[in-house]
């Protein structure tokens, strides 16, 4: 590991800690008065939405295939983690331990589901793949509606384990892993597949393997997002995870920028805060979404951020260089 890389890691860690410190400082100082819990809740919502959207971006942006069934994986994670945390309650585990075990269980269950769905579905491409992912998500939803263990219509009484600090740090870890994944050899491979799958397979890449793996990883993180969701909401019905939810997640990916995790993070955070800020216009929310989506498609087909990634080190470099230029002049 070079010195430069080490410094940039350190810088980013400091940056993230600063954001967290500012947010939790604001909460504990009681700046928002009576609405502190409410705003904390919105931030938790933003955290799990970021994980879901970023994970969907792995498939849509980096692999270049459509998934209209991401809500299915989210729901698998949510239900699996809720069942696990329900079984382990009162076994002497501390809350944090229970939370992490539930997260892992949710993620693994969704990941396994991702492999199971991916192996048959990823033989198809483009429009057909989009339809099949949607069909799988609907089947998952119907199953949850009918299984006894998921409580049939409603599952309630899930422990409220998702606090803002936990959700925040889980989000940071997940997004970092996804970022490293995209930058790795594996990530370059799936981008090669996106650009030209025939050329990629001609140069010795096992296209199916990489596609299924990416799908599973994406599902894994979606499941973690779902686990946080379940332990934040404490009650859920399978119809929460319908096609409309998948479409909403997909539109957040597109608006933020396909192929840009920065876009997903900022887009998801912004789009989960915005509706809360404009409660009075709740009826117009989805209307505005769709108009923005069409406008983005018309004028910036790659999304607002395109492929651009935010980099703290580059930003700092720029600032310091500009200052040194000024000094020189």
């Amino acid at each position: 590991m070079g010195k430069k890389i080490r410094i940039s890691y350190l810088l980013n860690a400091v940056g993230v800690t600063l954001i967290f410190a500012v947010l939790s400082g604001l909460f504990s100082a009681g700046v928002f008065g009576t609405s502190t819990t409410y705003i904390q809740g919105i931030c938790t919502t933003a955290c799990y939405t970021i994980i879901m959207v970023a994970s969907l971006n792995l498939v849509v942006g980096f692999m270049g295939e459509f998934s209209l069934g991401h809500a299915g994986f989210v729901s698998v994670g949510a239900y699996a983690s809720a069942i696990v945390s329900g079984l382990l309650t009162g076994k002497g585990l501390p809350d944090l331990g229970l939370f992490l075990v539930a997260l892992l269980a949710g993620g693994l269950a969704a990941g396994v589901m991702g492999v199971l769905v991916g192996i048959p579905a990823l033989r198809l491409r483009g429009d057909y793949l989009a339809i099949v992912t949607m069909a799988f998500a609907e089947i998952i939803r119907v199953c949850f509606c009918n299984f006894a263990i998921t409580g049939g219509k409603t599952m309630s009484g899930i422990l409220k384990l998702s606090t803002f600090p936990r959700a925040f740090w889980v989000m940071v870890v997940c997004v970092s892993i996804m970022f490293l994944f995209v930058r790795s050899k594996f990530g370059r491979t799936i981008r090669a597949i996106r650009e030209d799958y025939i050329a990629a397979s001609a140069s010795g890449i096992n296209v199916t393997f990489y596609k299924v793996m990416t799908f599973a990883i994406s599902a894994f993180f979606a499941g973690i997002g779902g686990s946080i969701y379940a332990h934040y909401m404490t009650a859920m019905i399978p119809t929460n995870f319908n096609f409309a939810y998948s479409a909403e997640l997909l539109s957040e990916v597109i608006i933020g920028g396909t192929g840009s995790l920065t876009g997903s993070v900022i887009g998801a955070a912004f789009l989960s805060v915005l509706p809360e800020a404009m409660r009075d216009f709740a009826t117009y929310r989805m209307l505005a979404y769709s108009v923005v989506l069409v406008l983005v498609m018309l004028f910036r087909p790659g999304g607002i951020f395109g492929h651009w990634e935010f980099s703290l080190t580059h930003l700092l470099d720029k600032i310091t260089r500009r200052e040194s230029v000024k000094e020189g002049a």
Partner: protein
Amino acid sequence: MAASLFVQGLINGLNQGAIYALIALGYTMVYGIIRMINFAHGDFIMIGAYTLFYTIPLMVNAGMPAWMAVIIAIVVCALVGVLVEILAYKPVRKAGSMSALITALAMSIFLENLAMVLFGAKPHNVQAIFQLPTVRVGSVSLPLNVLLTIAIGLLIMLGMQFFVKKTNLGKAMRAVPQDKDASTLVGINVDRIITLTFAIGSGLAAVAALMYCSTYPRVTNDMGSMMGMKAFIAAVLGGIGVIPGAMLGGILVGLIEIFVKLFAPGWYEAVTYGTLIVILLVKPSGILGKNLGEKV
């Protein structure tokens, strides 16, 4: 008893299937010509149904039969379809299939929420369209409006098949997806043909709305999305882009739904989607679809 239950299910399934088939026809025609899944197509049915809801009382007051309202509904739907095509789909047509799919998805969300803002989220009840008696044959009850629905569906499908195979416009519609440049060379106005396809597909959605409302007289702003999805599955099942495929797929989905509902009410959607997955994996181009190889 079992036999009569079967016949009853068969008739209900055909009724449902005829509606799906008509909607699937719209999907198939649009996909056949520009290779785009028009997610907003389901919402055209909703628009048709709302038009019927508002125009049927007017028609009845004017002393005309209620079903005449469908003419206005067809015009409204065709207009909306053409508008959506010109304003949203045409500008992104060159940008690739991903942009087209997202634009279609966005238009669907837009129309649904626009309807909610304009008409409210409460369901409206549509006035009865056909006042026809129910005939009993043995222990099977046959509502005549169900039979009428099936008959209308079949008639329109035969008409469409004739239109596409025999008329000049229909031939142009088949020529455009095969080779856009060559069609332009032989004097086909490609843009106009695409717009016409949207107009016809959307108009068919209005007829589907009439048939749906005569069986289930309820209009909501999200009625289109679920039905559109099923019809879309029907189109893919039969082979998207092929008109007989839409009929076959529609009737298949309708029958599957009604019969699974008889035995396992909670699972019918899962079975429908499961069938779709199996068909797509075995024969990705659908039951009647032609398999087109891909050029490197």
